[in-house]
């Protein structure tokens, strides 16, 4: 964990409104684990004031620019332009300065040996699943990705998963890519076929809730990666809390998404609360 002053390697639009951002990030390939995130500050002025959290898509090392220079560690983020901060971010160009705090939080537990892995991603929620897939394909085969989105533009990076050897199944609300419908329908079918699977999911809260209900019904293990509004990313502001399993208003059991998450064992969270 550190707070680096670093620079942009590339910032490419990969689908309408979705960008892939590469940042120089010394140490990340050794430190970062799948499911962790970073806090990015794109300028030193006071507006926008807060950093933005982004899930790590991938880490790696580039060859030196020329012989004699060191290799260049990098981190890759994939983000969707949703507001002012990400809109400003989309204008970043190679060489621009950014501050990078991370890698932060608890990642996926991928050391479990039980059952074939099923990855479930919804829209931009696919981001942390890519690095997870990179790890899992080294341990076990096959790895399966069930990917959902509103329309084809919201289904990202599928070819890259396929290149890793991941079996991918796509569902879109409008049927513009893959089958028409929700990714949770695909999950139901796959769990009937692979009843000992373990599930890793990231996506919007209603999707995660549905995935949770299905996994409870099928009695399979589930790890979820949550998104939250965050100010600090390090467990200080308590802005990003989610209710834990034992939460009661007089006996608080709030967990910080940034510190105890963003990846949680689904059994540790309270799913009764109305998430929106």
């Amino acid at each position, binding site marked *: *964990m*550190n*707070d680096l002053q670093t620079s942009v390697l590339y910032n490419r639009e990969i689908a309408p409104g979705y960008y892939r951002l590469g940042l120089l990030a010394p140490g990340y390939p050794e430190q970062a684990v799948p499911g962790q995130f970073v806090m990015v*500050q794109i300028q030193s002025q*006071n*507006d*926008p*004031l*807060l*950093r933005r959290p982004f899930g790590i898509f991938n880490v790696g090392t580039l060859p030196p620019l020329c012989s004699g220079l060191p290799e260049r560690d990098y981190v890759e983020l994939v983000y969707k332009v949703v507001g002012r*901060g990400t809109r400003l971010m989309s204008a970043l160009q190679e060489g621009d300065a950014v*501050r990078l*705090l991370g890698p932060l939080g608890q990642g996926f537990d991928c050391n479990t040996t039980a059952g074939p892995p099923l990855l479930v991603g919804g829209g931009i929620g696919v981001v942390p699943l890519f690095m997870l897939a990179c790890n899992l394909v080294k341990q076990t085969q096959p790895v399966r990705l069930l990917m959902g989105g509103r329309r084809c533009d919201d289904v990202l990076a599928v070819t890259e998963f396929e290149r890793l050897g991941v079996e991918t199944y796509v569902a879109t609300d409008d049927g513009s890519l893959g089958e028409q419908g929700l990714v949770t329908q695909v999950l139901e079918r796959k769990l009937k076929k692979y009843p000992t699977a373990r599930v890793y999911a990231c996506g919007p809260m209603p999707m995660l809730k549905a995935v949770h209900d299905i996994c409870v019904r099928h009695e399979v293990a589930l790890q979820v990666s949550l998104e*939250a*509004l*965050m*100010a*600090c990313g*390090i*467990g*200080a*502001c*308590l*802005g*990003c*809390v*989610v209710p834990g399993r034992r*939460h*009661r*208003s*007089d*006996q*608080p059991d*709030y967990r910080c998404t940034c*510190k105890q998450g963003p990846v949680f064992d689904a059994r540790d969270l309270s799913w009764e609360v109305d998430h929106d």
Partner: protein
Amino acid sequence: MTELVSRPSLAVELAGMHLRNPVMPASGTFGYGQEFTPYLDLEGIGALVTKGVSLHPKAGNPTPRIAETSAGMLNAIGLQNVGIEAFVRDKVPFLERINTPVVVNFFGNTLDEYEQVAARLSDVSVVRAVELNISCPNVKQGGIVFGTDPVAAAQVVERVRRQLKIPLIVKLTPNVTDIRVMARAVEEAGADVISCINTLTGMAVDLKRKRLHLANGTGGLSGPAIKPVALRLVYQVVRSVSIPVIGIGGIMTAEDALEFLLVGARAVQVGTANLVRPGIMAEIVAGIETYCQHQGIADINDWIGSLNEE
């Protein structure tokens, strides 16, 4: 020409406490300190101020609890905390290992609760001073109820003061008609130090969902957006009491901190900036030192309150 000073003294005294420099975190933006150890040397700041603690654990408000605003943020955390006993059991052992004065912020729902927490904290040896929160805008009971009425504020300060063997800092809210009235009331009642300001009550609207953004409805505005308001209020408080004042409000840089010191604050608290840059207090301390070196200020106490007013 100004004379260069190689090692300016940044040390200040605050109600008998010796601080190595005048920079400390604002309660609620620094957890219990431990969260910042990867980014900041806790022995490089003047004091360590912990998240507000109450007699019983407190769940805090539902989410969303934060919203970004122009050059600022709103928060309505709702004083979520582990409660005094868990604080003493789980957080104090870490604080005991840090060679920096520890200030514990606390609050209550009733006068009795304020008294009980104060009495308990007074017995914890690592606690060098307490900061009485009568200014949180985000909880219905306690907090702000005491902080907006001079009679109620004086009453809680008096009662708490009697329980304490250590200095009492009273943190004031800006959400009053005349902060000087509040400042004089708490000084009279026995406060050793005043810290101000807490956040300004604000609101954010979510156009898309046609709802208030924060689950609590209102929240406390902090960050650089509030600095001019904070400077004005600190200036006024400094001139209406004779006890030392800690200036708080939107400090992001050494220059910001120097402005508060110049208008007369004995020390400053850095709040929202910690959330954006966890190592920022070290940069602010270093910046103050550099400024003193270049301006020929041998002792920061010569700078404090040296505003030219003709």
